[in-house]
């Protein structure tokens, strides 16, 4: 009964979505206020019904209803409760429902938090998002119904993939999807701008916080996925340039370009059509990612079970959405206009260069991911493109971008002076070079790459210090605290996010530069030395868990005779799977991780053990966290939340060009006068 309710709720949501998108978009085009007002409640309605459907599926999982095919395929009577819940998104159909739920949530949020936006813009934005929802809901109802029944009802389910039976599984997909789907808001704003032919700094102001929040979630989602694979997969890697990982990274790269481009459009009114295009790209890459993961076109450990019919559907949907937006762009972009001008050396041009590099990087990742398919489709043989390619390409592309990160925030808008910038930054540069060289000689073997990585990270940090120093000393506050308090949240956000990048670079550089690993045959009492630590194999015993049996080893790590940690790597065999799973044991530290995992057994008491010393690996995810925090700080900036304090101004409706011009103009004048 419950699954049928769920299916019905989905169908209802689809009908509402269809009605809403058509009515809102047509209403906006015609200026029919009543039709446009339909958008908000309809968005809320979609969210509610998809939430009901989601609740029904979760209910079926919690109650172990194996008559529902999806539940039978992803659950098991022995599966603990928290994983029965997480299993809702443990497979293709359920994850689509999660996607639709999150899209509904974003739509409801846009509906609620957009009181000060003009009605026609809200109607268009929600209308476009409704269209996307139509696509996903129909995809589910016609090809991937999570509520399909199974006859005869199996006595037990096939169980959730053991790799997914982990606390991070509860977080990673929802957070990641919130990011992916969040870019649909930026996309919708872009399409709304194209449709209305109006695209000014105000548009950028409205869409920017939504985009930043989406970007923040995507950053967190990718970080969670990476941290998870680090400890779950058992051999200490944290990024594999797997097609599905790339599918999340490409929108992130373009999304980063987008938030920077939006900054310019908001501040200066320039880059308008480029920003719109980036918004279209970011979401298109999200959709493309969805396609790649579910169509079977690329081979990946992440890929869901596939069916060519599904692939065709998503591809058709992708074509309509992306092709339609590109066509709309080609048609309407010229109407938007160019905006203010700026010098070849200015903050604008530096940000544009950053954009070019980020988009080129995204394009390269796409190239590498799809190239095997290209050759295969053309009958030119079969190659595989692995991490060596991506690393060779990505690092040189990002290095100039990292360098520019130190200069950009200090450059003036419209016209910056290179000599002045050089003067302000010369000490930062000198300090960075000196420290980088010093560190790379003292930490371990000197290496050009390590020095370069450290230099870039220190450069970003040092120039950040120069930046905030300049702000504080030039501001008009009385006390130091007042001066710091007077600086906007968005500014702190930018500094923090950039600092996060620097921390990330340190982590990657030092981990890759200095990590050591050994595969050693160890029996009771055997010891081995890795990275300055001594590891002693104590014993191994057989244990039984809730739904698995395991070989549970005890290994002691010591340094200079002092006990550091006792580690328990395991090799688990789950009741429902045949191949064993490696559970690594990790001793986490601020400056290093000790990573121990079991390889193959030699006999009942002797195993091949992989011992790894991973310096600064936690900085990788620490950097991502800082980036996300920076994003949050930027999104909560007062100028996005403060109501106009001047009661003589009427609530913001469709702006008259004069008023808009004055707002824009005053900002420009202020910038050039100071």
């Amino acid at each position, binding site marked *: 009964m419950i699954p049928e309710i769920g299916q019905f709720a989905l169908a209802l949501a689809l009908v509402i979505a269809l009605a809403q998108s058509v009515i809102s978009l047509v209403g906006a085009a015609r200026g029919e206020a009543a039709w446009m007002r339909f958008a908000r409640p309809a968005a809320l309605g979609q969210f509610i019904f998809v939430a009901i459907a989601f609740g029904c599926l979760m209910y079926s999982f919690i109650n172990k209803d194996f008559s529902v095919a999806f539940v039978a395929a992803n659950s098991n009577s022995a599966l603990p409760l928290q994983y029965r819940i997480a299993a809702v998104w443990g497979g293709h159909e359920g994850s689509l429902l999660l996607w639709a739920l999150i899209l509904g949530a974003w739509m409801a949020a846009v509906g609620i938090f957009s009181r000060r936006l003009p009605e026609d813009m809200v109607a268009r934005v929600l209308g476009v998002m409704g269209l996307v929802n139509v696509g996903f809901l129909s995809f589910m109802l016609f090809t991937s119904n999570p509520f399909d029944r199974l006859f005869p009802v199996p006595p037990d389910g096939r169980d959730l993939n053991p790799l997914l039976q982990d606390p991070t599984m509860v977080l990673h997909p929802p957070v990641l999807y919130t990011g992916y789907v969040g870019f649909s808001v930026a996309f919708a704003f872009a399409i709304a701008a194209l449709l209305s032919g109006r695209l000014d700094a105000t548009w950028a102001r409205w869409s920017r916080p939504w985009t930043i929040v989406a970007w923040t979630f995507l950053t967190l989602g990718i970080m969670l996925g990476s941290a998870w694979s680090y400890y779950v997969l058992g051999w200490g890697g944290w990024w594999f340039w797997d097609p599905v990982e790339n599918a999340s990274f490409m929108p992130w790269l373009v999304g980063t370009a987008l938030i920077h481009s939006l900054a310019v459009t908001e501040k200066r009114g320039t880059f308008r059509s480029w920003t719109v295009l980036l918004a279209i790209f970011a979401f298109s890459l999200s959709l493309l990612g969805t396609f790649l993961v579910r169509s079977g076109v690329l081979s990946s450990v992440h890929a869901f079970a596939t069916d060519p019919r599904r692939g065709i559907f998503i591809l058709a949907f992708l074509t309509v959405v992306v092709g339609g937006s590109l066509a709309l762009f080609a048609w309407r972009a010229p109407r938007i206009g160019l905006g203010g001008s700026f010098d070849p050396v200015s903050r604008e041009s530096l940000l544009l260069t950053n954009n*070019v590099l980020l988009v080129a990087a995204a*394009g390269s990742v796409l190239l590498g991911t799809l190239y095997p398919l290209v050759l295969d489709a053309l009958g030119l043989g079969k*190659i595989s493109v692995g991490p060596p390619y991506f690393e060779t390409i990505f690092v040189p592309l990002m290095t100039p971008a990292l360098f520019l990160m130190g200069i950009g925030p200090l450059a003036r808008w419209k016209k910056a002076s290179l000599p002045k910038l050089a003067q302000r930054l010369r000490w930062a540069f000198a300090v960075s070079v000196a420290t980088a060289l010093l560190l790379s000689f003292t930490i371990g073997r000197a290496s050009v790459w390590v020095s370069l990585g450290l230099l870039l990270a220190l450069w970003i940090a040092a120039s950040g210090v120069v930046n905030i120093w300049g702000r504080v000393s030039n501001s008009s506050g009385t006390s130091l605290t007042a001066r710091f308090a007077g600086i906007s949240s968005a500014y702190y956000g930018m500094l923090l996010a950039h600092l996060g990048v620097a921390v990330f670079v340190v982590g990657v550089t030092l981990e890759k530069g200095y990590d050591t690993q050994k595969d050693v045959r160890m029996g009771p009492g055997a010891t081995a030395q890795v990275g300055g630590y001594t590891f002693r194999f104590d014993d191994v015993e057989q244990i039984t868990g809730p739904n698995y049996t395991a070989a549970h080893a005890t290994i002691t790590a010591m340094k200079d005779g002092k006990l550091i940690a006792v580690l328990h790597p395991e090799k688990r065999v789950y009741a429902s799977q045949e191949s064993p799973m490696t559970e690594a044991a990790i001793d986490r530290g601020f400056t290093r991780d000790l990573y121990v995992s079991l390889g193959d057994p030699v006999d009942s008491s002797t195993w091949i053990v992989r011992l790894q010393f991973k310096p600064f690996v936690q900085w990788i995810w620490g950097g991502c966290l800082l980036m996300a925090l920076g994003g949050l700080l930027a999104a909560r900036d007062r100028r996005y939340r403060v109501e106009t304090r001047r009661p003589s101004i009427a609530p913001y409706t469709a702006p008259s060009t004069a008023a808009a011009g004055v707002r824009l103009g005053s900002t420009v004048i202020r910038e050039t006068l100071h």
Partner: protein
Amino acid sequence: MGKVLVLILAALAIDIAYAADRAPAQEDPQLDQRVMALAGTLRCLVCQNETIADSPADLAKDLRKQIREKMQQGLSDRQIINYMVARYGDFVLYRPPLKATTILLWFGPLLFVAAGLGALFYRLMRRRKDAVLEVSEADRARAAALLKSDSPEIR
């Protein structure tokens, strides 16, 4: 006495044979490192997203053994790679080879950046030609006055 000797010898022989069967040769850590380093550049065909060094698959184990034997026979890294490619094709290379068919792959990114920067440069140069709005002194004074006042239209 003779029988006891034969028994001891037989026990020894069995023990030696057993040990050889059981123990992976651990006596040469440098060879191990070389094997794992090379295996890390080859893709496992069974678990296609892992290297032969990391993959737990049977085929990966066999291939690691093969690599080890070939190295002990004195083959160079390049020769062993050619050996693998002859049997499994280019797919087994983790790093795509540079051939006629992969030139676009390797030089594509460079092209992207060059094109992007080129387009940017072109745009910037063109914009310079557009008239730049000059603000006159009188306008500047007016603007300053407006900004200083508490007029509600200006932020």
